[in-house]
């Protein structure tokens, strides 16, 4: 009976982790909108549309915070956690926070473009934002990743390899197919970031599925 409920709780934890990841993304974007819209309003560049956008973003930020607290994606307090698992979880949390900070920085830097999804476009971004984000991405994130790989157990490592292989195969077929189709005039030129997002998405889904199935 206890084992059965524990198996179910692994599935529940999986849903909580997915929900939290989505909420963190929405939170980062919404916070960026709040910062950018507030800045514009303070500089006297306000308008009803911008005020409405700020209000929606504030509600979204509050909703995301409430959502994470409601989901509680962390182990129960009375549940023992192995030291290496705790370290791996903390590193994952840290990379999530850094991802959130990068998301806020990019959303803030692109808010003046007045496009809802400017953050994901290929438009220019101020070097003052780009350089620190690159420093975090190229110096800190690899260190965290290296430490994380040293901390995970074999089950998680196997799940990660499975997702990585699925992502690699997808990249090996998608990138040249898009490139060739573009040369044949069938589709627009390949977009690096779109390919990156698709590959990372498949990688994550594969990793997640193998870990929590």
């Amino acid at each position, binding site marked *: 009976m*206890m*084992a059965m409920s*524990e*198996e179910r709780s*692994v599935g529940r*934890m999986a849903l909580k982790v997915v929900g939290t990841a989505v909420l963190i993304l929405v939170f980062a974007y919404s916070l960026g909108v709040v910062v950018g819209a507030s800045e514009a309003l303070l500089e006297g560049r306000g308008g009803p549309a911008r005020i409405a956008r700020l209000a929606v973003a504030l509600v979204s930020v509050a909703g995301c915070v409430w959502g994470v607290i409601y989901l509680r994606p962390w*182990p129960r307090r009375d*549940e*023992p*956690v*192995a*030291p*290496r*698992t705790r370290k*791996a979880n903390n590193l994952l949390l840290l990379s999530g926070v850094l991802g959130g900070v990068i998301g806020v920085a990019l959303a803030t830097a692109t808010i003046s473009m007045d496009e809802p999804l400017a953050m994901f476009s290929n438009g220019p971004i101020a070097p003052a934002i780009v350089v620190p984000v690159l420093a975090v991405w190229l110096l800190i994130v690899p260190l965290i990743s290296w430490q994380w790989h040293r901390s995970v*157990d*074999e*089950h*998680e490592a*196997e799940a990660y390899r499975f997702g990585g292989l699925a992502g690699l195969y997808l990249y090996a077929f998608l990138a040249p197919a898009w490139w060739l189709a573009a040369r044949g005039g069938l589709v627009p030129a390949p977009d690096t970031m779109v390919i990156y997002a698709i590959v990372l998405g498949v990688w994550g889904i594969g990793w997640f599925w193998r*870990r*929590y*199935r």
Partner: protein
Amino acid sequence: MNNRLKVLRAERNWSQAELALRLDVSRQAVNAIETGKHDPSLPLAFRIARLFNQSIEEIFNDGHE
């Protein structure tokens, strides 16, 4: 691969989390081994065998006997 991990754990009244702590793995790893979704490596199989004071063959069965 079949195994008796769930039975051995239940005999000691350990939760998956408690067993995971003793093996220094995550609870998801214990769950995956118990349900046959993950076959442990030899080092982990030895750790499990030592923890329960049994041989690997007494805990794991590849179905060829």
